[in-house]
């Protein structure tokens, strides 16, 4: 007998998105199969989510904003290692990129990454160690610097260190950083997913903030996967698959786009073209040679990031 309830473990800031998705998915599934189902949501930092799953949180599907956290599930045998083949587009139905949010009128005249290391600019983004969001920020800045300094690693490090020096508050998650920027009015630039900048403008007033899209940014794929170990135990594979598949349907894609994500479906993408400015995107594969290498070189204990912290 198959389960009529699944749990979607997702990242911190995707609550509104998946609330909308669920609202559309549940009736559709009922129409298709005649079954009443429930989709529960759990939102937290994706590392915490992955850890919780390994410790026993029975999530049927994960919708993360980080490949590394799914890799952690793979490593612990919760997700099969070819999960990126299970769904189209590297199993990431939508994506985003680190983008800038500045205060109305862009008083500090921030245009690109190079402006962020100016002495008069304060930058807000969360701690890359605890926030997937910030990892992209870190990597995007590094990618930019590598291009700008033609791969001179010393200068790259100097650039990134300077960027970190300009951060007055390190929050543990993306939303906390947003609060610091918006409510506490600290900092001149908030770096976060483009999907977030859209949401913030919507939430706090289009007249208060502006989005600035840098010249180059990093492709942030939001991967999804079925947690094999859990669905096998609970007998919920079909439902889980149907749920994730739904994200690829035009309807699902449209919801994603409405929530500020860039989508794969071309028709839908075209429809939202005005919302998403052109930007040159580089990938982790291209610049850093893959997530596992990034993890090892940058984020592991004693890695480049720690060195940057240590030098502060």
């Amino acid at each position: 007998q198959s389960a009529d309830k699944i749990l979607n473990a997702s990242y911190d800031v995707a609550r509104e998105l998946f609330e909308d998705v669920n609202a559309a998915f549940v009736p559709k599934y009922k129409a298709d199969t005649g079954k009443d189902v429930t989709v529960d949501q759990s939102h937290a930092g994706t590392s915490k989510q992955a850890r919780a799953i390994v410790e026993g949180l029975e999530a049927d599907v994960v919708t993360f904003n980080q490949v590394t956290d799914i890799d952690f599930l793979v490593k612990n045998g919760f997700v099969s290692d070819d999960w990126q083949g299970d769904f189209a587009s590297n199993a990431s139905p939508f994506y985003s990129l680190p983008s800038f949010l500045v205060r109305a009128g862009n008083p500090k005249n921030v245009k690109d990454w190079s402006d962020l290391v100016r002495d008069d600019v304060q930058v807000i983004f969360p701690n890359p160690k605890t926030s997937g969001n910030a990892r992209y920020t870190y990597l995007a800045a590094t990618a930019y610097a590598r291009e700008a300094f033609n791969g001179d690693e010393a200068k790259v490090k100097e650039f990134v260190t300077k960027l970190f020096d300009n951060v007055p508050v390190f929050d543990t998650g993306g939303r906390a950083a947003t609060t610091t920027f918006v409510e506490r009015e600290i900092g001149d630039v908030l770096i976060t997913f483009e999907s977030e900048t859209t949401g913030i403008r919507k939430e706090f007033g289009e007249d208060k903030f502006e989005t600035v899209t840098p010249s180059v940014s990093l492709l942030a794929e939001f991967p999804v996967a079925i947690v094999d170990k859990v669905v096998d135990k609970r007998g919920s594979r079909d439902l889980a698959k149907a749920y994730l598949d739904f994200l690829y349907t035009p309807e699902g894609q449209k919801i994603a786009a409405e929530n500020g994500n860039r989508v794969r479906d071309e028709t839908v993408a075209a429809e939202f073209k005005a919302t998403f400015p052109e930007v040159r995107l580089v990938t982790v594969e291209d610049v850093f040679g893959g997530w596992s290498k990034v993890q090892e070189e940058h984020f592991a204990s004693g890695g480049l990031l720690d060195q940057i912290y240590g030098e502060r």
Partner: protein
Amino acid sequence: MQRGKRPPRVGDNPAIRRTLIAFVLVLGALLVLAPLVVIFTQAFSLGPAGFARTIGHPDTRHAIMLTVVTALIAVPVNTVFGIAAAWAITKFDFWGRRFLLVVIEIPFSVSPIVAGVAYLFVYGLQGVFGPMLDSAGIKILFALPGIVLASMFVTAPFVVRELVPLMQAQGRDLEEAATSLGASGWRTFFSVTLPNIRWALLYGVVLCNARVMGEFGAVSVVSGNIRGQTNTLPLHVELLYHDYQTVGAFAAAAILTVLAIVTIAAKVLLERQGAGRASRPALAAPTAAPGNAK
């Protein structure tokens, strides 16, 4: 001639007195009262309707319920434990009594995060009992039991700490008297011991309850954050806070604050009944029998 007054005691000098009172009032207002005010100001910054919207939301309501259920389990269990521990520690001499008291007090000073992590190590799938429990189909973490356990850890010392000093001061005479009059152990406890510790016990329970309802760190680690299922009220505050619902977060915080105020009011009432510090010497026997010296 200063008639009718008492001669000045230490610190009765008016300048010192006024300075100290002012110092305490100003700092108290700035440090303790102001946060309270800020919570309510923010909670009602969108008017009562905004407040009501948060409170009315099913997730908030579920969080309130979960918090209440947790308290309903954790507080009575802790109460029983507190009474048993206080009884053992104060009515008998045994080896390691002091050490036991120190161990019981540990949760007071252990970071709740550490507590949460420690629970992962026991009941997590990677922990000591996790796999065993999992194969038996028992869910502890990311479900009510985990939340309750973590809450119990954090509040384990509350009742004991209220009872032990009082019962120590009361000595064993009353129980010995009851026993010599033919009362059984239970009877002695319920008819003689309990009535004399009831206010302190209640005070301990009230504080324990406040803390259970307000626990954040430890519960956050073991809860799983499933909305509408394993989100307690303090976690819900954080969640709303991170959902750009500052007003909602403060509204939920306001509920917790009201609970805190109710707790304090209860405490003040209890103290007037003679609980807590107010009662200690009053109930105590003048001196303990020789056998009771520690």
